[in-house]
């Protein structure tokens, strides 16, 4: 502790963001209505007013990462050319999955496909065609786009940190983009904004997560749905994420992420094999084709002619904005654990593998829900419209060994929270110590306690709207920062591959191959 304290850093970013988060936190506590009104009003306005831009930008991220993976820079290693990856591939994927996905994956597993099946936008609900569309929509929300947003945020940071040996900060690419004092100023602003959006994003998400665990425990074990229960959950959560965060990435966070992954896979396999296995696997395979073939269309699908702007904002854009809101911290965290991988490997690991997993996940959970309604006794679809959490536990009741599933589900929801929180605290400590890759414990404690306090305040206010306002407001200013980061990254990476223009005739007869460098 003494050595950590010695390294405790107090810089401008730390002080300003500490003061600002305190101020916003106090504003939220004293006058929650004006705080949520202002923040959500701003987000609502931006989301509905320029809905086209969000979809365009996020789909842009996806196509940019495809270009990075398969384009001329795919071979660039995030680190020295001869560096080995720091973590094994399994742990790496487990960690990024545990950090990037929330308990929502579980909560919305049966609920979201069912919702879109019954009420799809712009078509008749309840038909087989609607079921296909429902899985496409769900995969659009949880699949490539989500992970591409994370990947782009992380790739930029990882490139500058490990390839260029610069501090692992949000501002690093921005300093490279602007010269002199402009870069310094914009960089500081970017850093502070990023810290604030991580702090509030995390506090809001933890508050919502604690409530989700609470209502999960209510449906699974019948515990009280009181503020006290939520605070107790938060207390346990605090202990767990501090333990995990202070022991560092290679111990607590890694171990917990692996446990998380094992439980998630266990639940999925239980549902898959205790349920209508053939139907579920057929659903999965069917959904692959539908998702991939309509990926391009849905990436740009808005509803100007159907006048369904409200649907786009309420579903697709809400999801996209959530992913962006988590961008700064997932970005730095994923970058932190991706040292030594090539850009192609990075994109496959961060985008392709998790997307395939979540497609299987939703095919299993959503498909089992469809099966219950189409061929089973029914009774699930109305619960989905009542309450998604209730629907999850009602859904698990359909399987043998529901008790085991209930316990695993609550445990998984909790661990998802811990794994998001520990990486968040770790990242905050990094961000306020000029990008220290193994930040001091004292810094983690300061942020851990602040986040716990903000979460507790939100829980005491008993308003989910406050939590939501805190969680996603940071996304919109952060989008501008990410766009600037990307520009800087694209400028910098041009120096990676020196143009090797060779005379075609020197390479023989095959014109097409002539451009490729010899092995």
């Amino acid at each position, binding site marked *: 502790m003494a050595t950590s304290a010695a390294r405790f850093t107090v810089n401008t970013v730390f002080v300003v963001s500490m003061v600002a988060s305190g101020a916003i936190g106090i504003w939220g506590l004293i006058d929650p209505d004006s705080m949520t009104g202002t923040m959500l009003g701003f987000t609502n306005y931006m989301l509905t007013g320029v809905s086209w831009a969000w979809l365009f930008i996020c789909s842009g991220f996806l196509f940019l990462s495809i270009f990075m993976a398969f384009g001329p820079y795919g071979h660039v290693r995030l680190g020295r050319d001869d560096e080995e990856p720091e973590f094994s591939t399994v742990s790496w994927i487990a960690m990024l999955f545990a950090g990037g996905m929330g308990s929502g994956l579980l909560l919305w597993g049966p609920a979201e496909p069912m919702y879109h099946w019954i009420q799809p936008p712009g078509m008749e609900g309840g038909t087989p065609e609607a079921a296909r569309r429902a899985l496409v929509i769900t995969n659009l929300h949880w699949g490539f786009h989500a992970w591409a947003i994370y990947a782009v945020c992380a790739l930029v940071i990882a490139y500058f940190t490990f390839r260029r040996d610069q501090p692992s900060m949000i501002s690093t690419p921005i300093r490279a983009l602007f010269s002199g004092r402009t870069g310094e100023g914009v960089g500081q602003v970017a850093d502070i904004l990023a810290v604030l959006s991580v702090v509030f994003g995390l506090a809001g998400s933890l508050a919502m997560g604690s409530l989700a665990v609470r209502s999960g425990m209510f449906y699974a074990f019948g515990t009280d749905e009181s503020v006290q229960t939520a605070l107790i959950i938060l207390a346990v959560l605090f202990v767990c994420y501090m333990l995990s965060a202070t022991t560092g990435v290679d111990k607590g966070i890694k171990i917990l992420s692996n446990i998380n992954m094992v439980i998630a896979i266990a639940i999925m396999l239980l549902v898959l*094999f205790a349920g209508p296995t053939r139907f579920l696997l057929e659903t999965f395979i069917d959904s692959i084709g539908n998702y991939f073939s309509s990926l391009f269309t849905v990436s740009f699908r808005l509803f100007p002619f159907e006048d369904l702007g409200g649907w786009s904002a309420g579903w697709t854009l*809400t999801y996209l904005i959530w992913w962006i809101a988590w961008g700064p911290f997932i970005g730095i965290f994923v970058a932190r654990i991706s040292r030594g991988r090539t850009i192609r490997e990075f994109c496959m690991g961060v985008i392709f593998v998790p997307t395939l997993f979540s497609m299987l996940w939703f095919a299993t959970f959503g498909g089992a829900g469809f099966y219950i309604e189409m061929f089973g006794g029914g009774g699930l679809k109305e619960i989905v419209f009542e309450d998604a959490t209730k629907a999850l536990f009602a859904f698990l009741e359909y399987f043998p060994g529901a008790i085991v599933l209930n316990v695993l589900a609550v445990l998984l929801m909790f661990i998802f929270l811990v794994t998001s929180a520990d990486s968040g605290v770790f990242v905050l400590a990094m961000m306020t110590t000029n990008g220290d890759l193994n930040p001091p414990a004292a810094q983690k404690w300061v942020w851990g306690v602040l986040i716990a306090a903000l979460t507790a305040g939100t829980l005491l206010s008993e308003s989910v709207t406050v939590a*939501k306002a805190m969680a996603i407001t940071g996304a919109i200013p952060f989008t501008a920062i990410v766009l600037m980061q990307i520009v800087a990254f694209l400028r910098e990476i041009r120096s990676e591959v020196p143009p090797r223009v060779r005379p075609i005739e020197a390479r023989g007869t095959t014109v097409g191959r002539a451009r490729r460098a010899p092995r």
Partner: protein
Amino acid sequence: MIGRLAVLLAMVALAIAGCDRREDEIRIGAKNFAESRILAEMMAALATEQGLRVTAVADYPTTQVILEALKLGEIDAYPDYNGTGLVMVGQNPTSDGDEAMARVRALYEPLGLTWLERIGFANDYALVMRAERAAELGIETISDLVRRAPQLTLAVEDDFTTRPLDGLDPLSARYGMEFGEVEVVPLDERGRVYDMLIDGEADVAEGYTTDGQIADYGLVVLEDDLQFFPVYQAAPLVRSETLARHPGLATALNALAGKIDAETMRELNRRAEIEGRPARAVARDALARMGLIEAGAVEAVDPLVIATDAPFSGGALAATTLRAARAVFSGRDIQLTAMPGPTRAVLAGDARLALVGADAFFDLSTPAPSRSDDLEAVAAVGEATVHVIAARSNPDALDGLGTLAVGPEGSSSARIGAALVSGLGLSAELVPLPEGGVAALAEAVTGGAADGAVIVAPAGDNAVAAAFAGGDLKLLPVAGWKEGANLVRFPFLREARLPSGVYPAQFGALDTLRLQLVLAGPAPQEEDAIGEQGPSSIATRELALSDTAVTALNAAIPGAPRVDPALPQAAALAPELPSPPAPMNPAPDISVLSVALVVFLMWLVWLYMRPRYR
């Protein structure tokens, strides 16, 4: 890694084995109506309990088909009735159960089929009518029907029409009657004959004496004065060869012998047919209660609660509501529960829907009631009438009453009472009762606890009629409502006239008020463009009913009127309004924002393209 793979392979192998139909499995069938399914599920559960492998119960459309399937070995067992057994082999049925059992055992033995012990109850055919219709026509026995039959409509299920000895044709021949019209429904939609009866589409229906609907809807069973219908005692019918192959099976199934009487069976049918519970859950629950299987096997089914005021929780409208909800939310256990403040229960998530008067949408605490948009009307169920009752000795005018008993706070009665006092400028003091049933309110008046009471119930409601039967109560007119601004202040209350003779000792027509009874659900939350969902988000409040559910509910309520336009309606019900031509630029601020954004994106492109400074 190899270990994990082995486990996975083992699981896959198990799953594949599970799909494979094996010879040692017992296949149990059921005729597709609730009672047969429940009994079949019980047989399956008992056999499973003995460690036998049983496949899921399969449904068969008619008795002939299922008997054929049993003979062919498609199935191994199904529950049947000894009367049916006799008829199916062309024997005359009998009304003596023991004799029928002995004959049926002897007749079926050469076919390789064994009748096990009787379960305990008999489920006989019966012709049923609505009580008031039967009283109107003066019909008590089937013979009474003969004269009226050509003008009447009979509702039957299709199995009954095809039965050779105890079906529709033999019945008509025995009594010498011909019905004007016969409505036939498939056997698996047998409950519809009762719907037709209640809706007045049919005058007479063919039912089973163990049907839960008979007691629930207060139907009368016509006396079979010529003893045409024989006795039908239920018992498992099993292939003898199966019994030989599985020695434990006979013991397992005979555990049911004499265990279920008609009363119990009626209750089980009621739970399956009227409450809409799955047959399997009903069967397992009953067996667990009887101690025949382990209690832990009872499956919990999350009920869908419809909250309502005490006066609306019984009677025809309640039955209509339950039936409609059961049809729409199939697979759910529907409960119509009286509770104080039904709308509060919906907003708090304790109930999914509320069956309430139109008043529930208005906040009556202020002089100018304002409409609350937390709830929306999803379907109109019927009308309720405001009954102001008083003791016979009291004056005939409302302003002569000192105290008015009303239901608990949040009930229609309490709200309408408040509206009456403020709208008519009455001096009466409201006395809320903790229990707001019709009987309790009437009791308060007869017992002298209050001078009068406000009862909100459908006109002619049985409970209200029962309260008047005592003879010491009278109805008071609500006069002069139109004066003042009442029609504007309370847009959900409409003037109505109760015709004479609706209630006993009500001799003249009476002016009063009426309001619509509606099913109310949570209204969609509109204020945020941001949805309730997200990676770590939870839905914060009850979502509105889906459009499909709303449409289906309205279709399921016979003759559903439009929802009163004064109430907030579900989107699926709202008429589509013609929209005026939109201005060329509906939002100039958005245009400015978009331009700024485009400029920003172009600036980014320039940042990328510009030459390096260093």
